[in-house]
């Protein structure tokens, strides 16, 4: 296993922007845009689990879907093993489609109710030809077993499974193409706590066995902390802090990250002192104000914060970056 801290970048994201147009008016023209991802830059290193955390609506799911081009980026660059994904057409994307897969949040809407598990899996395998035709059936059985389901699950329909089992099917589908990189978009947040652990453990096992790289998206910092190597903290389309999970509590400096750590209910009660600072509204993503988006809620806010967006700059510790005027040293 390579060391995540030193491994080469598998995926490089530079200044990624994703806007959604908003239509209105008499002629139904684009009147404004939702700035879901607003110029983010980061690397995913080979073999690591990179977490992305933030409140709902901060653009983390959009980010996850954009980096594997389920959504078209508005601007910026995505490089996978150095190849510029953002420039590829449908056909040229094909090899990367196989290498990059996604696990969804909702185990109910993420499975086509009309297809049996077998058909669902076979469809993609055949399409990419990742397994010889004759071996497909065995492969599927193996895959099902691998994600912890019984063999007879293959010929059942999604509605015959429980939520946790469905999520296992979702994982199997993502793995079916033997990918290298997986975006896990809040894979456990729709599940019961007891099942969450099972699924996370399954993911960890699979990661080890299959040498996967995972971009793990969650709103739950506690899950991230346990599961990931590094974490990106997102706020309203911006990365405000990037740091290693090992040092999360110790090194986090951005007021938002600190607030998240405080808001975490399972956290140490002593750390709750800063919870009350999160007052004020989240600014509208339709029309973001200049300056730091967090300024309206920030306890450390200065004039400068309202005028200018702080850049994401490296801190002393390797791999730790933060975007905040107030914590600049």
């Amino acid at each position: 296993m390579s060391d995540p801290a030193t491994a080469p970048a598998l995926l490089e994201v530079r200044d990624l922007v994703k806007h959604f147009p908003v239509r209105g008016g008499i002629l139904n023209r684009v009147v404004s845009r939702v700035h879901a991802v607003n110029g983010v830059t980061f690397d995913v290193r080979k073999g690591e689990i990179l977490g992305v955390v933030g409140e709902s609506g901060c653009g983390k799911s959009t980010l996850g879907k954009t980096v594997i081009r389920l959504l078209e980026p508005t601007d910026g660059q995505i490089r996978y093993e150095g190849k510029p994904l953002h420039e590829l057409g449908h056909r040229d994307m094909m090899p990367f489609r196989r290498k990059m897969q996604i696990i969804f949040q909702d185990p109910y809407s993420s499975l086509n109710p009309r297809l049996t598990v077998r058909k669902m899996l076979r469809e993609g395998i055949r399409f990419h030809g990742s397994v010889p035709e004759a071996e497909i059936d065995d492969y599927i059985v193996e895959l099902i077993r691998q994600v912890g389901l019984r063999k007879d699950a293959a010929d059942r329909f999604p509605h015959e499974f429980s939520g946790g089992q469905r999520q296992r099917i979702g994982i199997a589908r993502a793995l079916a193409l033997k990918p290298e990189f997986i975006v896990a978009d809040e894979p456990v947040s729709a599940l019961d706590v007891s099942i969450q652990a099972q699924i996370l453990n399954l993911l960890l096992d699979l990661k080890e066995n299959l040498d996967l790289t995972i971009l793990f998206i969650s709103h739950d910092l506690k899950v991230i902390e346990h599961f990931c190597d590094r974490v990106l903290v997102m706020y309203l389309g911006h990365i405000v802090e990037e740091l290693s999970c090992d040092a999360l509590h110790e090194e986090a400096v951005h007021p938002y990250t600190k607030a998240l750590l405080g808001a975490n209910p399972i956290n140490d009660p002593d750390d709750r002192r800063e919870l009350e600072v999160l007052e004020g509204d989240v600014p509208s993503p339709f029309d973001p104000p200049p300056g730091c988006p967090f300024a309206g809620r920030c306890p450390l806010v200065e004039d400068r914060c309202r005028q200018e967006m702080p850049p994401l700059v490296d801190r002393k510790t390797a791999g730790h970056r933060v975007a905040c005027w107030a914590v600049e040293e």
Partner: protein
Amino acid sequence: MVARFFRSRGARKFMANRLAVAAFLVIAGYLLVAGLVWFTGIITLEETLGRIGASYQPGLWGAQRSGKRIEDATFWFEVAQNAADRGDFETARGGVAFYERRLTGELDADEIKARVARGIALAKEVLVVEGFDESASVLPKVDEIDAIVVELFPHPEGWDAFMYGARHVLGTDRQGRSISFRAIYSIKVAVQVGVVTALFAVLFGSFVGAAAAFFGGWIDHAVIWLYSTFSSIPYLVLLSVLVYMFNDTSVDKTLIPLYVAFGLTFWVGPCRVIRGETLKIKELEYIQAATAIGFSRTYILIKHVIPNTAHLMFINASLLFIGAIKGEVILSFLGLGVKSGPSWGIMISQSKAEVVSGFFWQIGTATVLMFVLVLAFNILSDALQDAFDPKHV
């Protein structure tokens, strides 16, 4: 697919609805009859167009007043007379058969003529001299007239008798055609029209609606414009314009105008419904999962989107089936319906003249047969909606 259907919650709910199952069986029965007519020709078009006897025969061999009995007898006398009049009697007689009921082979031309003369004389006696009264003095003469008819055209026996009975069981219309055969043949026409239009409208409408919602952009705008346009022309106005278009053209005699009329109007419903459903489906994560695998948009549309609207297609198809059957009646009235051969619409339209004289067998038969089928479809579509689309209003 089928297995899944029967295992699904909807199917189980549907099967639990006894009424719906009965309706389903009724429809299956109709389809069976239609299939029999279509493939085996147990009833041919000729049989529905040919005379089987006198006009306005009541069904179930209802009793008739003597005036009507004489009228019916006159019909047979005329037929026999014409046969005897034609020079070559033997060949002529071969053609004088009303299916199972044939001119007797035991009498020669002169004997036939004599009997006809006697019969007509008797008839005139009753009609002209004695008037139409039902008195005892008239009845023996009427009986004698009937006896002559039977002598000329003996009642068929064996299998023939059964077929003869089948033809006459619901009486004859104004032109002396078998109401029962016409009504049963019409099942084929109704099913044909219903299946073709429901299939076409649902498949076309669904595909267009799904494609519009799925691809969005100008395709969606164009489709919305198209169906808004079609649905903004009031139904009967559109039909009227079609009547104008198709009147006196070469496809006038076929069912094509009917298909076009229904096709143009009916696809809008499924298109609208399926478009709405697709808008919902396309946001679901399994569609994104398919995109992530790398499938093309079209493949995803066909394999993942459209099959998930199937329940709505079924419901729409059964509603359109009703629409087609009932619409056929209106179109036949407007002169755009079935032209060659019978249909329930034609039968109802034609029975206008019969109702005035208190003869209800044709309108009754057509209405009842149609009623049962439409009712069954109504129940079926209700049950389908309850089972698969519980939110419907």
